[in-house]
């Protein structure tokens, strides 16, 4: 029985881990291309989840339509946010920009509470069954959907950065903005794109977690969990973000298991990632995959 629980938690950890990975990837995307540490990443999840919830519940749209519409909305939201709030800050000290993202985080928390209230709002039944049986394990269909969509997004990211013209331009901008400009790349357009993609993809995680746990301000805590994932993986590595996300996802579920079986401390689930964060910062501050510059000797 306990080994069954262990496997179940492991699977849960991997699935939630991919979600962390996806959000961490979005975080890294912004950090890499614009050097901004975005403390409002969690609010992207929150806004995405509320937007989808509103479309399904208030506008009575079917979920299969509301889901892509949420993506479109978040993309526009990301572009507008970058153009209105962050573009005027280009060239300002990086600490000012980071303070602004903290401000944005508080602002969006308040605005969503103002519009939608402080209570948890459940999504209506999206999937006909509560859980599906995968190799004898019970998995929530929302998680299954998130796993599929996450993997698709990761594959999409890999393709985008390797082969697409804009993807290469974003990598060039991350490498050196002046070089990118000398190639005819508009750095402003790249910045807007980074925020748009980041907001859009983060919303996916928001919607999935919203379906499972209901939508509320607590969702943005998910965004905070992404910090350990990003730090474990290395701030500037997309692969690291995915691996970091998986590690944190599995780790917190394992912490839950250990806690439930032996320690009985309670709540180790949410705290464990941050212990890891501290340990990683002490022993490997650049993370597992933080890139070192190529030195030709």
């Amino acid at each position, binding site marked *: 029985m306990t080994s069954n629980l262990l496997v179940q938690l492991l699977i849960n950890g991997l699935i939630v881990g991919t979600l962390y990975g996806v959000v961490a990837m979005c975080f890294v995307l912004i950090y890499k291309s614009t050097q901004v540490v975005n403390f409002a990443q969690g609010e992207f999840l929150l806004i995405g989840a509320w937007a989808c919830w509103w479309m399904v519940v208030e506008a009575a749209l079917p979920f299969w339509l509301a889901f892509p519409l949420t993506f479109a909305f978040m993309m526009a939201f990301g572009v507008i946010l970058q153009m209105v709030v962050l573009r005027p800050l280009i060239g300002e000290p990086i600490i000012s920009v980071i303070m602004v993202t903290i401000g944005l985080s508080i602002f969006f928390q308040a605005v969503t509470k103002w519009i939608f209230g402080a209570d948890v709002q459940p999504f209506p039944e999206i999937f006909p069954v509560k859980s599906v049986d995968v190799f004898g394990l019970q998995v929530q269909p929302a998680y299954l959907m998130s796993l599929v969509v996450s993997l698709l997004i990761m594959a999409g990211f890999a393709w985008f950065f390797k082969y697409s013209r804009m993807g290469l331009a974003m*990598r060039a901008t991350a490498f050196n*903005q*002046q070089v990118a*400009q000398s190639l*005819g*790349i*508009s750095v402003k357009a790249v910045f807007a794109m980074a925020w748009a993609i980041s907001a859009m993809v983060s919303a996916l995680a928001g919607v999935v977690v919203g379906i499972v746990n209901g939508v509320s301000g607590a969702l943005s805590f998910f965004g905070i969990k992404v910090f350990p994932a990003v730090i474990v993986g290395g701030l500037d590595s997309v692969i690291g973000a995915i691996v970091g996300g998986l590690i944190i996802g599995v780790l917190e579920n394992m912490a839950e298991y250990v806690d439930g079986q032996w320690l009985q401390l309670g709540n180790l689930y949410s705290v464990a990632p941050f212990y890891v964060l501290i340990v990683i910062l002490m022993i490997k501050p650049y993370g597992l995959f933080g890139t070192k510059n*190529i030195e030709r000797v």
Partner: protein
Amino acid sequence: MGEAALKLAPEESLLTVNNIEVVYDDVILVLRGVSLDVPKGKIVTLLGPNGAGKSTTLKAISGLLATEDGEVTRGAVSFMGENIANRAPEEIVRRGIFQVMEGRRIIEDMTVGENLRLGAFTRKDGAAAIRDDIDLVYSYFPRLKERTGLAGYLSGGEQQMLAIGRALMARPKMILLDEPSMGLSPLLVKEVFGIIEQLNKDLGITILLVEQNARMALKVADYGYIMESGKIVLDGTKDELVNNEDVKEFYLGGDKERKSFKNLKSYKRRKRWL
């Protein structure tokens, strides 16, 4: 001096820099009235000591000045009859001027192929045409084709070739080359300059070349300008410059009696060109 436009009147001018003044950070005056003229299809070189403002002149043309808080505060940069001073760099690339920056500046964490594809960023004529041009670049730089790893691991000469190849990918009308000889062995310098000359002949690309290696630059150039302390102090055709006593003395290394470096310096200070 500096009125080169008159001498070159019969030729069609592609780029004319007219009496520009460049200021960094709103206070530091770097260029004090620089004028030069680059005729279509020619190689023009801009020579001068460190800190004379050669790179700044190139950046004023390519628009990259803005990325360093610099600004053209007076004068005009006209390219094909239109003033492009202080325009956004991406617009200037679209118009057909591509700068190969000092120190090559290839994207080290990308492959050779990815670097080349990025050179074609502003082009809209489709993947097939871009692929053809990648083959064209490989025909000029065959050794780049063999390098499959990251560009950061290329040798200095290969990186310079990649930087020039990447510029070709944009199909520019004009390339601004900032010290292509920097950090290269004499043999490689020869090879790179040979290719520059060939590109100019084969593809008709106009080149504005900034160099410290005056001897090499004057070998390939049609016309030259010499800059000092933010001003053009001398200009002339290749032959005029090569035979000029001062140029021989300061840039080509006088072959008569050898002077000690100390004496040379004070002599130079006394003379100061003008």
